[in-house]
């Protein structure tokens, strides 16, 4: 599934799938003014970015994020901060 195929509801639950190389390329780069990519790993250790970063990206060097394949987001369990 691609970004243009997402329904509004799906935008809340899908994320863009990155390769290891793409993740390295996005680290420290801006996607919109004063906004930076933050690739993270999901439950299956896939590198992902959010739909917001894909949709809002205006950096001409990284417009390819808009074409990333989308997968359902499976977050890692969030421990309470004191157990982290």
């Amino acid at each position, binding site marked *: 599934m691609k970004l243009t195929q997402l329904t509004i509801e799906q935008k809340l639950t899908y994320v863009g799938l990155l390769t290891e190389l793409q993740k390295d390329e996005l680290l420290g780069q801006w996607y919109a003014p004063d906004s*930076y990519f*933050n690739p*993270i790993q999901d439950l299956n250790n896939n590198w992902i970015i*959010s739909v917001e970063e894909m949709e809002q990206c205006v950096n001409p060097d990284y417009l390819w994020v808009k074409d990333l394949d989308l997968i359902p987001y499976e977050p890692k369990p969030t421990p*309470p*901060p004191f157990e*982290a």
Partner: protein
Amino acid sequence: MIGYGNSVFLRRNFEAGLPPVNTVAPAITGTAQEGQILTSSTGTWTGTPTITFAYQWKRNGSNILSATNSTYTLVTADVSQSIKCTVTATNGIGNASADSNSVTPIAAVDPDAQAFITAAAITDPTQQAAINTLVVDLKGYNVWTKMKALYPFVGGTATTHKFNLKNPLDTNAAFRLVFSGGWTHSANGATPNGTNAYADTFIIPNTNLSLDSTHLSYYSRTNITGPQVDMGVTETSAACYLLYNYNNLAFKAINRLEAAGGSTYTPTNGFLIGSRNSSTTEKYYHKGTLINTLTIISYAKSTYKMFLGAYSNANTASGYSSKQTAFASIGDGLSDTEAANFYTAVQAFQTTLSRQI
């Protein structure tokens, strides 16, 4: 006698002419704001030359003492009053007066508010006025000096939301925010996506905060009971600074080693303040009301940066939140009275912007 009569006749013929008559009223130009200079034009007059002009500035119809030039510098007493200028034209035949339009000056913008408005390029008059009132109120309550960072989230974009009202420079050293991950910015505030969004404050407790005098505040417009962190930093061998909720419990920590349990409160939106004013006591306020007093000693300050929208686990974001925030602050500890006044000022600010909870 004949000669005298001729002289009068000749002089009257020579002086015969028209007195001044105003055809276009004088007009005031300049910014009608305390401290600014207004200028009155003469307007347009007919009549026999040469016409000279005199000026008298008036407040609510009464003469302002010594305000008799074409320019006038507005003072505090002029704020919200009706100010105009009466121009009197005189020639050899006679004189006449005409009033300018009236203006109603507004109060001067606080220099700190103006610095933020300029840096963040805030152009909306309502937002400008809200920022100014917020700064004036915080100074009036004597809490302005206790703030290290104030994030008012006005303007509706990442570029306007990043600025620290207390030090509105676009540098890490000024503690402006850097947004990472998926944020949505709007007039109502900044909303992290709960997946990978956080904002770095660049505030490091060990460097920037006092051991026994610290506060955090967070104005959430979203009521969420899941495991999400509003703001904070943790470190294995140093103190926690956290505002967060987990499984319907509101956990907070201001410079202590570990959480000693949470306090239940619902909802989790509104203005939350956590404050430590001594080495032994932490207090928490929800919407200005004291909800918890905990006796917990302070601990070594964290050496990592504090985040918003998540917490910094040794500078790595975790506990991502999806709560829309409309205000946050970090600074010195607040007393009960100061916390209540702080809430009053921030709530008034949010109400002006129609985004209060």
